[in-house]
């Protein structure tokens, strides 16, 4: 399997610019700076790289939506808000190999003709932010950033911004609002950030992992990247796996790798001789899969979608046979109720209501009719809100309740 993102993750002092450069770092930036800006975008397009923040939107295409010569600056925002339960892949990249992200940002900025970029890091990652800041300081020192990047006629400043503890600020328009100093409320789209983003200017928001793939793509060429993975899911992807596996952690796999093999070979399988019960493959917001649904499914965008779930952010949660599905769903529902920004009615009221019903059920105080009520609430929320957070609650609710209905009903007894 190809290692692109984690190639140097375990090497000593990889976080320092000296070691990073010794191991070939910032060569890709140098190469990009010698190319046409448009050619860099074309290269990224050709690589087939898709956004790793959850939505999987083709990165090169996103960049090509950014209008040129608007008279306004263009901004690049690195989304390091990583808050989806089960997701902890960006953290390791920033902690262990921060210059890869900085180099990726510099390449993206050059391609987009952006001179000011921000890294929006979740508030709970303050220690990570400090490490990233240290790397930025080194990069400035080494003239990888600043008024003349690598001695070229290209200026770039990158700032770190620490969030204040809201999951919703990972949603790109909410992130922009937060960065502007307002409440982290997702915006109505259109207009899209590409034209009206940060400070009403053209803006690109990209996930840490997306940006980290750029140096390799530029260095090795789009064709090399596109050769990895499947027809529509190119390259490699990080999966942060947690739950009932022997070796939880962050793994890099070629897209298209079989799910069952991943759990058994990479993550060490379900421990203690227990049986697999279910998998949430892409972070808490994607539909849960039963063990029976897993065989044959590949870890790529299309295969997971076909199996009724999603790749999401790659935050995989593995659940063994001892797991109470109502309890698990209750924890997830609590999270979304707590994190709903409260802006739009169906999400604000629906996430809270569903969480309360689930708490009741788990406490043995539920009614049988509550099970259907949960599904009704899911219908009432789905597709009716400003941002996808409500749907992120709907997907686990609907999949847990329909696939494990008897467990919910058992808790309700004869009520």
């Amino acid at each position: 399997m190809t290692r692109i993102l984690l190639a140097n993750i375990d090497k000593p002092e990889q976080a320092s610019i000296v070691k990073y450069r010794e191991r070939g770092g910032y060569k890709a930036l140098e190469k990009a700076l010698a190319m046409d800006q448009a050619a860099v975008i074309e290269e990224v397009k050709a690589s087939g790289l898709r956004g790793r923040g959850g939505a999987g939107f083709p990165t090169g295409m996103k960049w090509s939506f950014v209008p040129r010569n608007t008279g306004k600056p263009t901004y690049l925002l690195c989304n390091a808000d990583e808050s989806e339960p089960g997701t902890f892949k960006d953290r390791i990249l920033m902690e262990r190999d921060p210059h890869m992200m900085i180099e990726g940002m510099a390449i993206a900025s050059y391609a987009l003709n952006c001179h000011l970029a921000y890294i929006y890091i979740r508030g709970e990652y303050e220690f990570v932010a400090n490490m990233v800041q240290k790397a930025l300081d080194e990069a400035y020192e080494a003239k990888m950033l600043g008024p003349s990047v690598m001695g070229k006629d290209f200026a770039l400043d990158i700032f770190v911004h620490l969030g204040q503890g809201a999951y919703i600020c990972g949603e790109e328009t909410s992130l922009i609002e937060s960065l502007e100093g307002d409440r982290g409320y997702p915006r109505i789209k259109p207009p899209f950030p590409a034209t009206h983003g940060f400070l009403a200017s053209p803006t690109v928001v990209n996930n840490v992992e997306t940006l980290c793939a750029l140096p390799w793509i530029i260095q090795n060429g789009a064709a090399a990247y596109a050769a990895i993975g499947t027809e529509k899911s190119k390259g490699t992807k990080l999966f942060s796996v947690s739950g009932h596996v022997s070796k939880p952690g962050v793994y890099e796999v070629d897209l298209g790798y079989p799910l069952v093999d991943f759990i058994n070979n990479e993550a060490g399988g379900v421990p203690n001789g227990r049986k697999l019960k279910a998998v949430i493959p892409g972070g808490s917001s994607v539909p849960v899969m039963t063990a029976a649904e897993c065989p044959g499914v590949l870890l790529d965008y299309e295969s997971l979608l076909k199996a009724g779930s999603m790749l999401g952010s790659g935050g995989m949660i593995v659940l063994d046979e001892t797991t109470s599905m109502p309890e698990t769903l209750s924890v997830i529902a609590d999270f979304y109720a707590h994190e709903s920004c409260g802006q739009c009615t169906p999400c604000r009221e629906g996430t809270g209501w569903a969480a309360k019903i689930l708490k009741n059920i788990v406490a043995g105080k539920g009614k049988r009719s509550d099970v259907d009520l949960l599904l009704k609430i899911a219908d009432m929320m789905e597709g009716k809100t400003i941002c996808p957070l409500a749907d992120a609650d709907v997907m686990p609710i609907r999949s847990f309740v329909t696939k494990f209905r008897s467990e919910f009903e058992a808790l309700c007894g004869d009520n």
Partner: protein
Amino acid sequence: MPKFTLNGQEVEAKPGQTIIQAAADHGMEIPHYCYHPDLPIDGNCRMCLVEVEKMPKLTPACTTLVNDGMVVRSENERVKEAVRGVLEFLLINHPVDCPVCDQAGECRLQDYYMVYGLHTSEIPLGMKVRKRKVIDLGPMVVLDQERCVLCSRCIRFFEYVTETGEMQFFGRGDHVAIGTFEDRPLDNPYSGNVVDICPVGALTSRDFRFKCRVWFLHATDSVCGGCSTGCTVRIDHRDGTIFRLLPRRNVEVNRSWLCDEGRLSFHKLSDGERITRPLVKGRDGVQAPVTWEEAARSIDSRLKEIRDTNGAASILGFASPSATNEALFLFKRYLDGLGATQFDFRLDSEDKKLADEEDQILRHFDKHPNSMGAIKLGLMSEQVGGIEGAINAARAGRLKAGVVIYFKPLVERPGDAEAEGRVLALLDELEYSVLLTSHKADWQDSASVVLPVAAWSEEEGTYTNFEGRVQLAGKAIEVEGNALPVWEVFAMLLHASGAESPWMSAEDVFATMADSVSVFSGITLDQTRLPGVVVG
């Protein structure tokens, strides 16, 4: 012009219009909470979801621009189900304290529930999110957080209209609550507007709450008498008492807003006693009640006597910039008939100094609703030079008699007492004075004749605002005692003087005015209704 299909009917939209706006233009209301025509769009309540062909999801009508050829459905089962769902969501944490809520009867939750909801509540009371109630937010507003549907209209009003930003949401999820920072009072001069725009009973009027259930009120269309902006209002009244003023939306004047002073200005009318009968000073120097006929005859003959002795230039017509165009028109016509040449209406030369009370939103420094009407009707002359000039002329003996109309301003200002003092000084200096006014005051003893007249809201008539916009104000309240509208007093005087006096209503007077005064020529009473008509 984009054409689109709305519930099977092909309709036109203006370029750049959203579905909700275009639908409204065609008389179709799409249910909504957060959308307000005079606020920036927010799209948060999701009540306005409609189905648009080729869009997989329902889309908010308030945020979606009309495209040519769009096919929109707002009344099918899918849409109704979605709206019903949103409504159910809004009610799960609602306290359902409608019986003690002042909004009852004009609450959008109640209204839409009757159309879309009618579901049974599935959430037990103990599971509801509790928030704070009866929070005092200053002189105009009382807040109940539990009734709030979190539409952010109030926030947007303070953010974009007054640009003062007092209100905000606190917390998140279903614990979001509306409020001001540390419950600070809303003390900007437009705060009352948020009570109107709040679609539910979360923000209620400190002044109006619990005074009257709204379904007992009668509404009369009018124009605010508080200043020269002439905001378009509705007077809500019952049994001869005004309970509140509400804005009528007029995009040309006040959009959907009123200033707080104007909103509360009607209280001035019940301040102090009314004069109920015409009073004429006898030989003993004491004012005694007479009939209108007696008063009219005596005024007309006395004014003619003075004219014949001292010349027509010794008669002053001092108008009020708070009287209607119709009143001022007949006032002028009567005095013109006597040959009078000296007219003015300017009471407070101080006005300009009070310009700090003017702002870019609505409030005009001139606290009279019809100064422009007075000017257009030729009631301002450099020769007289305002009330100061008139006092001096009277003192010097050049002016002997005066017909004075005076109304206390409905919006108070420092300097009002001084202005009133100048009216007294004028009456004192004149040999013979006729005062038309509505409320009793000590200083009126100086007048030779006091005539009780209808105050603002008690007669129909038009006002001309600072930009020359003529707007019709209806009659909401019956006058007290034998008082008459000003126009009627002069119609009577014209009759007494032997002139033609065919008017039976303010409308008749308006028609004559439109016929004979060039600035008003050609306008019809219909044009003076929303949004009013600007004259040259």
